């Protein structure tokens, strides 16, 4: 309480000073004002946040701020996901602002999500006054301690004079090297303390020097190996998106005549319409992509950390292959998969060097051998999942296929939640450019898609934005519909409503004796919920209604819930059971699991 009065007094003094300050004309700003000036310097014009006790001074400064638009979410987790959605489509750092204690702890999932998928965020958390830290004050949480293992770096600002330097460093760290979230914890008294605003000219971080250029010798070794290979495959990962290396990847694949498969995080980095595209690999990847990787003699992995969802059984992963691995994060190399030629560097720079090297020196390529490898892969391409037996209910696969057919020429942004619908969307929605498919890959966060789609729509208001959701996932952040309505953010939610936590149900069906333990989940009437929030709601139960409803949804330019009531028991295929080698692909319910 005492602190509270002190705060009132302080702000009282501030007001007096700004209105009747005749003593001396000083350029001093409050920490809160400095914070906003720093954001301006970093080119930030949109932030996502939620106010609270210790950051009131910032909201006071925001009140008349004309260069920053603040979006008030309905839950702090959503603020972070929205900022990540914004970062994913723009490539810039997303910015979120939350208060201390519960505000900050609610943000953790969002921070961890961005950390695992490598997207740049700067998350500002409020903190109790410096003198109160450690005293279990109201809404105190040791957010530096809590976030240490789920962010790229974090800062507790203990002097208002440090604020500009810390913020500049935070943006620098978030957006360079392997991008990731940085947390800046700002105590209340720092935000009301005054200092001159001095923007540092450069960042000095002696302990932070990402290696951007691959070693030339390693690069020529890699190139030689790829040229000599008889059965080469490229795995393109999220690092291609981060370094914007799509064009270089395409050129290299064309010149060397190498097929390209992509991870979930790299959807769209290689045109899926190209004959050399194998689409996605991994647990729910294509039969042919998994077989190509399992049978290749040279594997060229770029910007991927070999997550268990793509490697399956590590011992059997690309056993006969020599492996070349490019990553900007040295930790990714030799972590899961033993690598023959490691190249630490930025994907784009490495690919540019490879192309230059290739053009300058005469590497011999036996195109006939490579062509017969592609033909072998084409044979595998005939293996597609069996169609499910039709029932009287709508099929989720049909819904997503129709949705793709209807929207494919719109350059739409498609977010997903996590589960069966996510995998179906990843399998069926083809992209020819990155930063269009927004999905939680590493952490697998249910509740990510809706707020992320919201952030994406705010970043790109001219593009249609969809969120493919399950009835389970959507309920994790359904409250953001209020945010969408308030700012008229026209996110269209494609709800694949099967009344189950479908992916878990699928595992239970095959692996846990059909004991559907706690996976049948009820939900509200999504149409009524939409209407109650002031959004548009539709329900679709028949195939012929899909396109007309989608058309209405796109045309109304409002936030929309479309409740697709679908068959309960549909399964995602192809499917590689966890721990199995990735060429052990199940294509239908009839495949034996042993």
């Amino acid at each position, binding site marked *: 309480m005492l602190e509270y009065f002190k705060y009132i007094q302080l702000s009282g003094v501030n007001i007096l000073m700004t209105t009747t300050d005749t003593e001396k004309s000083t350029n001093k700003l409050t920490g809160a004002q400095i914070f906003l000036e720093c954001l301006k310097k970093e080119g930030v014009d949109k932030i996502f946040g939620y106010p609270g006790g210790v950051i009131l001074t910032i909201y006071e400064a925001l009140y008349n701020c004309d260069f920053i638009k603040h979006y008030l979410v309905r839950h702090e987790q959503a603020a972070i996901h929205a900022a990540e959605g914004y970062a994913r489509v723009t490539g810039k750092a997303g910015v979120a602002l939350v208060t201390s204690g519960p505000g900050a702890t609610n943000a953790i999932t969002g921070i961890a999500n961005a950390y695992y998928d490598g997207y740049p965020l700067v998350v500002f958390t409020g903190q109790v006054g410096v003198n109160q830290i450690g005293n279990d004050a109201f809404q105190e949480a040791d957010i530096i301690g809590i976030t240490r*293992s789920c962010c*790229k770096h974090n800062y*507790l600002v203990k002097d208002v004079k440090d604020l500009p330097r810390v913020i500049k460093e935070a943006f620098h*760290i978030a957006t360079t090297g392997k991008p990731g979230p940085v947390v800046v914890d700002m105590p209340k008294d720092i935000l009301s303390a005054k200092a001159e605003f001095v923007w540092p000219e450069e960042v000095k971080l*002696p*302990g932070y*020097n990402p290696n951007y250029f691959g070693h030339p010798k390693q690069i020529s070794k890699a190139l030689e190996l790829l040229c000599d290979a008889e059965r080469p495959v490229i795995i393109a990962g999220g690092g291609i998106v981060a370094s914007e290396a799509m064009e270089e990847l395409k050129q290299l694949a064309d010149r060397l005549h190498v097929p390209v498969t992509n991870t979930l995080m790299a959807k769209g980095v290689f045109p899926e319409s190209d004959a050399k595209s194998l689409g996605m690999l991994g647990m729910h990847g294509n039969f042919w992509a998994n077989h190509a990787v399992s049978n290749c003699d040279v594997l060229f992995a770029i910007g991927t950390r070999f997550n268990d969802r793509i490697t399956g059984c590590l011992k059997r992963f690309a056993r006969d292959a020599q492996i070349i691995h490019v990553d900007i994060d*040295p930790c990714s190399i*030799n972590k899961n998969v033993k690598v023959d030629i490691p190249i630490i560097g930025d994907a784009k720079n490495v690919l540019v060097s490879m192309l230059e090297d290739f053009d300058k020196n005469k590497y011999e390529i036996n195109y006939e051998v490579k062509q017969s490898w592609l033909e072998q892969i084409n044979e595998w391409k005939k293996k597609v999942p069996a169609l499910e037996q039709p029932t009287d209910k709508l099929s989720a696969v049909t819904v997503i296929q129709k949705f793709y057919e209807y929207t494919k020429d719109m350059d739409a942004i498609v977010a997903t939640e996590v589960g069966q619908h996510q995998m179906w969307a990843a399998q069926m929605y083809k992209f020819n450019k990155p930063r269009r498919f927004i999905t939680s890959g590493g952490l697998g966060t249910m509740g990510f898609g809706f707020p992320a789609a919201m952030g994406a729509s705010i970043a790109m208001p001219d593009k249609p934005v969809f969120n493919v959701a399950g009835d389970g996932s959507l309920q994790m952040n359904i409250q953001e519909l209020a945010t969408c309505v308030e700012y008229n953010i026209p996110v269209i939610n494609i709800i694949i409503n099967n009344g189950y936590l479908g992916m878990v149900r699928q595992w239970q069906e095959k692996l846990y004796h059909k004991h559907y333990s706690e996976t049948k989940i009820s939900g509200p009437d999504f149409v009524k919920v939409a209407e109650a929030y002031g959004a548009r709601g539709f329900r679709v139960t028949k195939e012929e209604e899909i396109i007309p409803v989608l058309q209405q949804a796109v045309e109304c330019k409002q936030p929309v819930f479309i409740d697709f009531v679908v068959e309960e028991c549909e399964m995602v295929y192809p499917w590689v059971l966890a721990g199995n080698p990735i060429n052990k692909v199940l294509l239908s319910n009839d495949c034996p699991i042993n």
Partner: protein
Amino acid sequence: MQNNKNHVISVLVKDEAGIVSRVSGLFSGRGYSIESITAAQTSEKGYARITIETSGGDANVIEQITKQLNRLIPVLKVIDLGDVESIERELILCKVIAKDEDRSEILRIAEIFGAKIIDVTPRTYTLQAIGDERQIRSLIELLRPIGIRELVRSGKVGITRANQFTTNNANGNGNSVVKAE
């Protein structure tokens, strides 16, 4: 390099609040063991050195530990002291039960190991010894049958023999520190 022996890793860091927690948290979070950890300031203001002894890791694990440590922003340099010519030492304080008939034996052992008796009570002697891993282990083995009441170990510290692990470079400017590859 031998597999699965203890490794002593020396980490040069910016001396800032929470740095030990950042480094030790990395070990616990990723399941690496810490046999001992020491941390103190270096000769240069603003920098500290953390020495960690870790066990049970093959070459891959040690490689990951080194890389993960390097990834921390306030970490300036990481050296696996097993990889370079280095000297490692540990200090122990050992309170031994000093029965009349054992006293001369304790003194004899202390003398052999260059240990000092730093405290004497009617029932105990307290020894201070400094040595490398082998010396310390032998000393403890010899004292154990006599009766160790309490043993306090500093954990290992180590230093490289060549001049390669400071905050300075040739022009003595602390800003130009670069990370080890």
